[in-house]
């Protein structure tokens, strides 16, 4: 195994991670600051016998990757804010039809066209609830180029294993950051989707204890119907209340059942922390340094950083926040994560939101200043 690091931009690391994870189809539409992913994929995919296509818009891109995945190919798209908004309808389709796929959202300032070349972290609630109705989704939030590479691979593994759309979200800074990346071995084993066998009584949406149905590959003889309508275990539309409740709850329970392998987080100095800093992505890099500075000043600060944003690692956060007298949430939005923490930490611990929405990254000094303020109060 090579320990050598390859210098890569975040977006290139994402593309190479996807290739390493077995991605063989990319459908996308150019949008700053994600376009380098599409550009790299257009060069890499033919080399491995995969297909790249630039679709007519993000709606079509999302549809195309679902189509490819239904055909049995690992597939991905990449976009940013406005494009992510356009993908929401078909994201819901992937969720209900349980089609594995990976969506990269390189966040930029919003709303609307916002600031295409400036970073932001304002899509975390959209990523969870952007498409209508109750649905399962996994959202991963890497904070370094290495993590972009690794989490993109993990996104494919989770998507394939659990038959769920997985969103990988980072921001413009990480996208264009050059860092050394330890690449995976080319012959590393891939996680395979659970495929239907030749069973005579096969039902496309019936599951065992793992709540993940085996997927029929077109051409394997099962001739299955796939629909975005609420469907029974046989795959056909239904409005029968008991069936609808059963199949929809199974869809939501599916991720709960696998929480342990989905959830990923980093906890630094949380055991004795008076003030817990909770943040993710690029802001977590500033927070990590801020915590060190604060500790040197005698402020007992700790850092909790979710790498899995959804489903949120709730138990882990509660454990990390156990002794904390306050929680500080620096994030590049107007308080989306802190809003979420208010739901998770219902023990009265004060939650201080440090939302920044000026298109500039949060600096360690800014976080240290807030930590000092909190200690003073």
């Amino acid at each position, binding site marked *: 195994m090579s320990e050598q690091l390859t210098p890569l931009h975040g977006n290139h690391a994402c593309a190479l991670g996807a290739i390493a994870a077995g991605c*063989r*189809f990319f*459908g996308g539409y150019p949008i700053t600051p994600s376009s380098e992913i599409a550009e790299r994929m257009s*060069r890499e995919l*033919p*080399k*491995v*016998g995969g*297909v790249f*296509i630039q*679709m*007519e*818009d993000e*709606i*079509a*891109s999302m*549809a*195309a*990757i*679902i*189509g*490819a*995945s*239904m*055909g*049995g*190919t690992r*597939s991905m798209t990449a976009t940013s804010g406005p494009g992510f908004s356009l993908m929401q*309808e*078909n994201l819901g*389709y992937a969720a209900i039809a349980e089609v594995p796929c990976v969506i990269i959202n390189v966040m930029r300032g919003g709303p609307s066209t916002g600031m295409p070349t400036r970073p932001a972290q304002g899509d975390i609630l959209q990523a969870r609830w952007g498409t209508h109705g109750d649905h399962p989704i996994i959202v991963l939030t890497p904070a370094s180029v290495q993590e972009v590479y690794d989490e993109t691979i993990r996104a494919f593994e989770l998507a394939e294993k659990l038959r769920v759309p997985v969103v990988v979200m980072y921001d413009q800074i990480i996208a264009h950051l050059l860092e050394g990346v330890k690449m995976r071995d080319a012959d590393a084993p891939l996680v395979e989707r659970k495929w239907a066998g030749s069973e005579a009584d096969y039902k496309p949406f019936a599951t065992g204890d793992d709540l993940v149905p085996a997927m*029929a590959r*077109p*051409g*394997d*003889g099962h*001739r*299955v*119907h*796939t*629909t*975005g*309508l609420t469907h029974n275990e046989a795959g*056909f*539309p239904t409005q029968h209340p008991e069936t609808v409740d059963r199949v929809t709850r199974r869809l939501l329970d599916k991720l709960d059942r696998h929480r342990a392998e989905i959830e990923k987080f980093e906890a630094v100095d949380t055991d004795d922390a008076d003030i817990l800093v909770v943040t993710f992505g690029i802001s977590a890099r500033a927070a990590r340094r801020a915590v060190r500075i604060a500790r040197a000043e005698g402020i007992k600060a700790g850092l909790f950083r979710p790498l899995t944003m959804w489903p949120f690692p709730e138990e882990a956060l509660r454990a990390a926040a156990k002794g904390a007298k306050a929680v500080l949430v620096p994030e590049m939005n107007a308080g989306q994560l802190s809003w979420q923490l208010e739901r998770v930490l219902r023990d009265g611990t004060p939650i201080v939101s440090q939302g920044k929405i000026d298109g500039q990254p949060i600096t360690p000094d800014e976080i240290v200043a807030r930590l000092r303020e909190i200690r003073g109060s």
Partner: protein
Amino acid sequence: MNEVATVAGAETGPFEIRDYLRLELMPHFMCPGCGHGIALRALLWAVHELGIEKDKLAVVSGIGCSGRVGAYIDANTFHTTHGRPLAFATGLKLARPDLTVVVISGDGDSLAIGGNHLIHACRRNLDMTLLMLNNEVYGMTGGQVSPTTSEHRLTTTTPTGNVEPVFDACRLAAASGASFVGREVTLQAPALKNLVKKAIAHNGFSFVEVMSDCTEIYGRKNDLGESPEMILSQKADMRPEAFGNVADQPFRPHRLATGVFAELDRPEYGAVYRAQPAFRKG
């Protein structure tokens, strides 16, 4: 390249539609006299005569009455989102060139919400067939105006009559570069079957417009009679005439031409993509 099992003169035996239906779902949900059923029969008949294996047939549909048609076919069927079936099918066909991909869509699905996907699918020329069932109305949602609703016709959103010009879908498809374009009425069922057959066998993007009838909603609202009368009047409106210059007549004239309007030998997208030097086969 498409490996449709279309051996010339293949002996496929007499056509029995029950062999191609999901019998457990029959009778289907369509209203009495809905032309979509006739179109579905023509499609399955064509599939049978082409000798396409059901396992290798993928039917992708959108939303609306047309979108629900696919579910009755005993094949790999994908009921996708409104207006997007062509985009889904694009991904599916590129990932699985071994499948014969047929998209069933409606006039609203193809021309309004899915208009962008339609023109680009025509331009790209990926090997698949779009069957656009044109009943001139949004039937599933209760009869609203569509891009093909004839002028002056009443719908629930044109209470005093439609004032918008009518898309000529075949001209749109031809102008966008579809390498096979044709139109037929349901009354001419064997001709429709033959048209669909040609379209599926064509290597490239095929656009087939089927003039269907919506009796329950559109026909009733506009006093067009029951389905037999509607089907016959469609025929009376048809003229197997020259297609003419697209630019001469961007909107649909009262008299519709039927037949094959374009049959071009253009490079097929998937084959071109896979032929690039960098592409690793196998």
